[in-house]
């Protein structure tokens, strides 16, 4: 009888426990990604990944039809400027906070086709900064840390998209690109 009580107790707590784990998992996964990314490439700088293959582990379920560049960011030291030439074929710049939410994004698709051929220049600020203090396109991150991911088509001749990612940057807002 005592054992049955223990088993019922364990089953009940385990049932509730799966929801606690589900709550923790997104942050845990992003913290791991952040830690590994920071160790590999440092933060507040853009790194272009090789074309995905069976060895790629930076992105879960990488697409072999896309080129990726990422910036692991930390806004504690101030705002960041992300600059990226926008190629003709599919391209996007997506912003993720530490609970995996894709909280903002820009692209060269649909109503944003006029970005093609231009340079996207985004100032990324933290939640405690005011967008009014900055000129141009401003994205406000809900958390001080997160990830910016650039995607560009790798289909067919990818030279233009590769050149666009290679020329992109992520750096403190008060510095010039080298």
């Amino acid at each position: 009888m005592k054992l049955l009580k223990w088993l019922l107790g364990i089953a009940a707590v385990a049932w509730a426990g799966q929801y606690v784990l589900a709550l923790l998992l997104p942050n845990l996964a992003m913290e791991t990604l952040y830690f590994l990314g920071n160790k590999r490439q440092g933060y507040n700088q853009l790194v272009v990944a090789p074309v995905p293959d069976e060895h790629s582990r930076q992105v879960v379920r990488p697409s072999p039809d896309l080129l990726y560049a990422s910036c692991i960011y930390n806004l504690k030291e101030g705002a960041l400027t992300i600059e990226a030439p926008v190629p003709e074929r599919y391209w996007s710049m997506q912003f993720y906070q530490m609970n995996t939410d894709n909280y903002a994004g820009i692209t060269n698709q649909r109503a944003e086709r006029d970005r093609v051929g231009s340079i996207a220049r985004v100032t990324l600020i933290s939640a405690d900064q005011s967008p009014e203090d900055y000129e141009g396109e401003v994205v406000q991150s809900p958390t001080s840390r997160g990830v910016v991911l650039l995607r560009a088509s790798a289909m067919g001749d990818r030279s233009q998209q590769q050149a666009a990612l290679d020329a992109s940057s992520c750096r403190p807002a008060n510095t010039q690109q080298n």
Partner: protein
Amino acid sequence: MLKTLSKLTAAAIITLALSAVLLARTIGAGLSGMTLQNGDWTTSTATGSEDASLMLKAGVALGGLLASAQSDSMYYRLSAVDGEPLRLNCRYRIEGKDYDANWWSVTAYGWDNYLMPNLPRRYSFNNENLVRDTDGSWVITVAATAQPGNWLPIGPAGAPGWRKTTNHDFDLLLRLYTPGEAYLNTPMSAPLPRVIREDCQ
């Protein structure tokens, strides 16, 4: 006192392990409450969004971290045909045509959510590199051994087998980037490729 502490520690470890197993099963079964079915394909309109349920966010964290939101891309996943999990020893036929999106692709992933090692280093087909019939339709054959035409090779996942927690050996992911209205508004009935299990060894 020490005996009670040992019992409590053991109970805590068992509870944690059981919670992890229950969570894996819930995510694996697509019980997020926000997963939509279209034939054998499943999708979610909340992937990457702030509106995603607790379980969907956990599922994305495990199997689709850094997925983008629906307006940018839609992901349809298939891990079973007519209820039978995808197996490495079976051959599958994917039949399709063109889909309303800026571009689309079909990619095979191992149960570990990464691209599967294979000799031809072919991991996907997209709307530009498929060999098509004169009417624009196409067929992809998914198999471990070489096949004529559009062959999508499969093989053991890169991760060690003892870590496998899924029923399926691999799965297929249809990506639709800048998807059209049908995918955004009626994802459960929008046109998708058909997957047929041909034979198993």
